[in-house]
């Protein structure tokens, strides 16, 4: 079940191949997953209370708020709130519920900017960047106002490698570092800062459950079919026609998958020139030189990129020279804000700018192929015609994700033992 010497995955995971990922993580079983988890309002309400209001959620990167007073607003419909994320005078990142202490009005009505104070538009209460209530108009006419207790309500915030996470649980049960765990350790040292000096981002409100979207981005089984026009030979080859992945690592909640890159890849004329002038993400001739051990963990020579799925709905997909993220923010059971962002080192030359634009366009056109499935799938899920779905061995991140959600919704502790099992499996692979 190990990769062949040059890193090409064996052709076929099943029977002869030994169900590669199932053998590594047998505790996940092989059974079907229920279909109603994508359409049930009851399920969605449980996900809201037991997952999204309890865990660390990515809301962006530090480059968005470089200076004291810079802020942005993250609407979190799934947590029934909106959050202000601001760079304080102390240089640290703070987060607050976007809500005035007087009578509840939303403080920031815009999506971001720079300010010295947050002043409520309703009656003019004013708060410092540290959330403290600083000024109340006509204060003398209030009764026993204890201003020091009436600041903005803090939201727990943490920064990992420049990624800002918040947790709306008033008493988070674990720190961000604990939550990210070994997945984070393996990625530390990746040049996220250097590669984040420019970014391109697209967003869309999609009529689909967040898990429909997430699941489409956490398996490679679809590549040879859905992406047959856009990437006919980047992730597939004669020896690996179904884009079998190089490696899978599961954590208690998160998961990573290291993707095969094909030597058969023949760049188009424009792709070739773009690659000569800079970095573009869809390539197959990458090495992981200089990248931390958690990236391309097998150090395969046939590597393209790694998917890192941070539970519940944030992906940090890393490659050589650039990386991209997906963020899926649920709005309702069948409505999700989908945001994908590609990150680069800021181009200073026209050639590199052209190269990055090609990278952007091809990335965008590929993920719009994924995007087509979201609403088509959701529209049929609501028929209720199918009760369950059957997963391929390469869909193990999907299986894992549904397993973790089920554990959290039914109040079971996430099974920490299997992280250790997973590690053991990895070291014996």
């Amino acid at each position, binding site marked *: 079940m190990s990769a062949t010497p040059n890193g090409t995955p064996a052709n076929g995971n099943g029977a002869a191949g030994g169900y590669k990922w199932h053998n590594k993580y047998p505790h996940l079983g092989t059974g079907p997953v229920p279909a109603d988890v994508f359409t049930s309002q009851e399920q969605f309400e449980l996900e809201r209370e037991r997952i999204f209001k309890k865990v660390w959620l990515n809301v962006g990167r530090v480059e968005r708020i470089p200076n004291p007073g810079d802020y942005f607003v993250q609407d979190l419909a799934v947590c029934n709130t909106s959050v202000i994320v601001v760079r304080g005078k102390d240089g640290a990142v703070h987060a607050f519920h976007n809500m005035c202490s007087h009578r509840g009005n939303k403080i920031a009505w815009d999506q971001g900017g720079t300010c010295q104070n947050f002043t409520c538009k309703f009656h003019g209460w004013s708060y410092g960047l540290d959330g403290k209530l600083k000024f109340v108009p006509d204060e003398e006419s209030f009764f026993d106002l204890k201003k020091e207790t009436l600041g903005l309500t803090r939201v727990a915030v943490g920064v990992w490698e420049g990624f800002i996470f918040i947790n709306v649980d008033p008493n988070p049960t674990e720190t961000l570092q604990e939550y990210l765990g070994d997945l984070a350790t393996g990625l530390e040292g990746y040049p996220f800062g250097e590669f984040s000096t420019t970014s391109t981002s*697209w967003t869309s409100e999609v009529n689909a459950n967040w898990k429909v979207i997430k699941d489409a981005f956490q398996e490679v089984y679809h590549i040879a079919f859905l992406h047959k026009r856009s990437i006919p030979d980047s992730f597939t080859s004669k020896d690996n026609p179904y884009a079998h992945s190089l490696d899978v690592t599961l954590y208690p909640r998160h998961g990573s998958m290291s993707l095969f890159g094909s030597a058969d890849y023949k760049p188009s004329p424009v792709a070739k020139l773009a690659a000569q002038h800079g970095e573009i993400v869809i390539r197959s001739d990458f090495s992981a030189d200089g990248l931390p051990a958690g990236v391309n963990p097998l150090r395969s020579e046939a590597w393209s990129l790694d998917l890192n799925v941070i539970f519940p709905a944030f992906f940090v997909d890393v490659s050589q020279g650039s990386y991209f993220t997906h963020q899926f923010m649920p709005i309702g059971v069948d409505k999700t804000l989908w945001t994908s962002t590609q990150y680069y080192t800021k181009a*200073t*030359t*026209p050639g590199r700018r*052209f190269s990055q634009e090609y990278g952007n366009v091809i990335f965008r056109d590929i993920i719009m*192929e994924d995007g087509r499935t*979201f609403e088509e799938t959701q529209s049929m899920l609501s028929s209720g015609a199918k009760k369950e779905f059957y997963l391929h061995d390469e869909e193990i991140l999907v299986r894992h994700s549904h397993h973790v959600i089920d554990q959290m919704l039914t109040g079971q502790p996430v099974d920490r033992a299997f992280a250790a099992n997973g590690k053991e499996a990895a070291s014996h692979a």
Partner: protein
Amino acid sequence: MAESDWPAAFSTLQPFLGWALATEAERTHKRQTSEMADIQAFYVAMLSHLEDVLVYLNQFPLERLPSHAQQLMDMTLSLAEIAPAVELFGQPREDDTFDPFRFVPQHH
């Protein structure tokens, strides 16, 4: 732009100045609303000069391109925009794709 600023070597690209568009939204709109024959003609013209255009542009700092160079730059970005239409899909928009007008760039 003064006529004389446009590099003589790229005179065959001048008829395609309509592709000198500054934002991704504009470039996407042009790709999605153009006839394939027009996209193809732009592709052939641009690609035949692309290497020289990039060498030419690289003598300027990206943030301070003279106006004619900025137009050429934006045309290379349009080439990037339409490349998949020509090289992969054979049509401006692939049949089986998410609505490109609903996938909104947050950058410029």
